[in-house]
């Protein structure tokens, strides 16, 4: 018998291959964002495309430079920077100056994401944080809304449904709001498209609907009890974008199903409180950011019971 030396690979189990990768997940999120983004182009014109390109481009650039300076493995291939850039753009009014968008990307990628260790290590949602920083730094530019389908970027600021609601102006119809024919950030107005994207992610098992449902549900119920128009409240502002794409962000929300429900409820409650009692017309970003900060504590209390773990002084089940 010829004793041919055969070099074999030795590795720990499991040995079966699984083809789902981080990149593929990110790609699916991008696909899910596309309907709402396309509606943004339809309603707010071609500047949406250039603004989004600036956001995505600067996000990728910041990620690349950051990893280079930190002497870490280059991670732009995982597409997470593209997702951040896209979400960031969708959280901006279409008229926002490009240099402000670049500042937003810097905050999202460098400060929120990379300084904390990169993908999966950040405690706050990059796009939400960037939106809040921009909103506080440049309140006028960040609330310069234009009327949909008129493409007049220099026009005097129109108002979002929530502002109209607060000041008692003429509010748009439910249908217009559901389809997105209102003023607002370029990616947040079309509830229908966001719903389609969110359901796509849920069907492909990228996200769980626990957080979006409890978010939208609790906001609906609370608004009802509080005497606001509940349908109006959930369709207006960034509720759908926040619920389906921000409150389901992996790194910054709880990992267990129970934790996700608590997270969603918290977002709903905070959004209601800010909108109903606060000075800001919109509260989605703040509520998600606040819940992001609470996430480690929610995880602590929402850990599931481990099967077969010792139970101290309890009856056997």
């Amino acid at each position, binding site marked *: 018998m010829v004793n041919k030396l055969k070099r*074999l690979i030795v*590795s720990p*189990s499991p*040995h079966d291959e699984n083809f789902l990768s*981080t990149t593929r997940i990110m790609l699916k999120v991008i696909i899910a964002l596309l309907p709402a983004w396309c509606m943004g182009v339809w309603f707010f014109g071609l500047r949406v495309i250039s603004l989004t390109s600036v956001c995505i481009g600067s996000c990728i650039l910041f990620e690349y430079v950051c990893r280079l300076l930190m002497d870490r493995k280059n991670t732009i291939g995982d597409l997470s920077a593209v997702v951040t850039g896209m979400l960031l753009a969708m959280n901006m009014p279409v008229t926002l100056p490009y240099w402000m968008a670049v500042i937003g990307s810097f905050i999202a990628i460098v400060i929120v994401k990379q300084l904390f260790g990169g993908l999966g290590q950040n405690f706050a949602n990059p796009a939400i944080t960037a939106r809040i920083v921009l909103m506080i730094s440049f309140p006028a530019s960040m609330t310069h809304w234009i009327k949909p389908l008129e493409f007049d970027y220099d026009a005097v600021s129109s108002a979002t449904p929530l502002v109209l609601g607060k000041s008692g102006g003429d509010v748009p119809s439910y249908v217009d709001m559901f389809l997105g024919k209102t003023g607002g950030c370029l990616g947040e107005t079309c509830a229908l498209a966001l719903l389609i994207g969110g359901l796509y992610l849920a069907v492909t098992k990228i996200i769980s609907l626990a957080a979006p449902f409890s978010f939208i549900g609790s906001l609906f119920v609370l608004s009802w009890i509080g005497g606001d128009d509940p349908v109006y409240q959930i369709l207006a502002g960034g509720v759908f974008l926040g619920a389906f794409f921000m409150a389901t962000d*992996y790194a910054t929300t709880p990992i267990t199903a129970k934790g996700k429900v608590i997270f969603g409820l918290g977002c709903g409650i905070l959004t209601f409180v800010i909108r109903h009692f606060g000075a800001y017309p919109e509260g989605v970003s703040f509520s998600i950011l606040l819940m992001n900060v609470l996430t480690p504590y929610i995880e602590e209390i929402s850990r*599931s019971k481990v*099967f077969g773990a010792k139970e101290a002084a309890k009856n056997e089940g």
Partner: protein
Amino acid sequence: MKKLKGIRLKHRKNTENSVTTELPLPAEVTIPMSMTMGKFCQPLVKVGDEVRVGQKIGDCPEMFSAPVHSGVSGKVKLLKDYIAANGAVCKAVVIETDGLQTVSEEVKKPVVSDRESFLNAVRESGACGLGGAGFPTHMKLSTKSPIDTLIVNAAECEPYITADYREMMEFPDDIIGGINMIKTQLGIKNAKLAIEANKPEAINNFIKMAENDDTIDIVTLPSVYPQGAEKIIIYNSTGRVVREGEFPSDKGVIVINVSTVAFLYRYMQNGMPLVKRRITVDGNAVGEPKNVSAIIGTPFREVLEFCKTDMDALIKLIGGGPMMGMSIPDIDMPVVKTSNALLAVKSYDIRKPSNCIRCGRCVRVCSLGLIPADIDRAYRIRNIEELKKLNVSLCMNCGSCTFVCPANRKLAETNQLAKALIRGK
């Protein structure tokens, strides 16, 4: 009853209809002195000794071990050191076969008169769990706790493997006979034969066979990996929870593999010890995937050649299933008592681990409700307190978390390292 989580794997039971074929007699066999859990055996033969089929060639005075027998007749050529796939070092007996397969006079129907002689006979048979873990069977059966249910594990939940399934299709009478024998000898009232739902033919067959016997219950397990894990199968067939630090016998059950039951039944009829076993040969480098009956000690190389394996393309060998099996470092290692499958593959996932994105897939699939992502994080900073709080010691290394991880993190491996860290190794 709370449903346990799990993972739906592709079954890939390509060999389920492959009738077991006898492997040609090898020119030489290498029989390790340790193939089961427990103490290693010492060789009972010297170089130059003549041995016959069924002759005991290794034993150990300790109870927690199983004797080793020769499956061939021939001459002892060499006693050598042997490194098992799990790293254990023991002696191995190399026997040159003479092709005659003369049966030893030691092989005779064992005399069983009471519980003790039965357990003794089980030990002498060399039996161990044939499902892969290799726990000496007599140790399992000799529990002092009162047992009311015998669970026969026929889940065979890992992809590819059909060795137990073929046992069920080819020797169903031995299985039923074995169940009744163990029940009678040990005074156990009920037996449950637990089969995963992806084997409907076997389930229907056994339901028919056990129709008039209400002490044997055929349980259909959901087709969700891992059903064959001891604690899971106990819970899914009786609803009982075996907690950390407890044995199944503390809950009144014994779990035993289906092929082991059939083997014991045959041993009690003809006295031929465990010298042969069925092994599923599959994987994308194998030309003719099939079930073969191999003499223990046969080099894997001959098994692979018999199944027309593409030896040049082969880059990885797995002993056992793809989820829990062990990498085999050397193609000339022998078939052992616990080899239920041999997978020869020509592809290997070369992706490097990347950052955890906390997607929670590992949490969603863990049957035990562990949080592998948090264990991974705690292990990286060697936080023993946190690891204990996360109950990592319960992990049974089923591999589901690593399998689903999109960042390709070796979570199951980390769990094992974390367990060792807690034990202080």
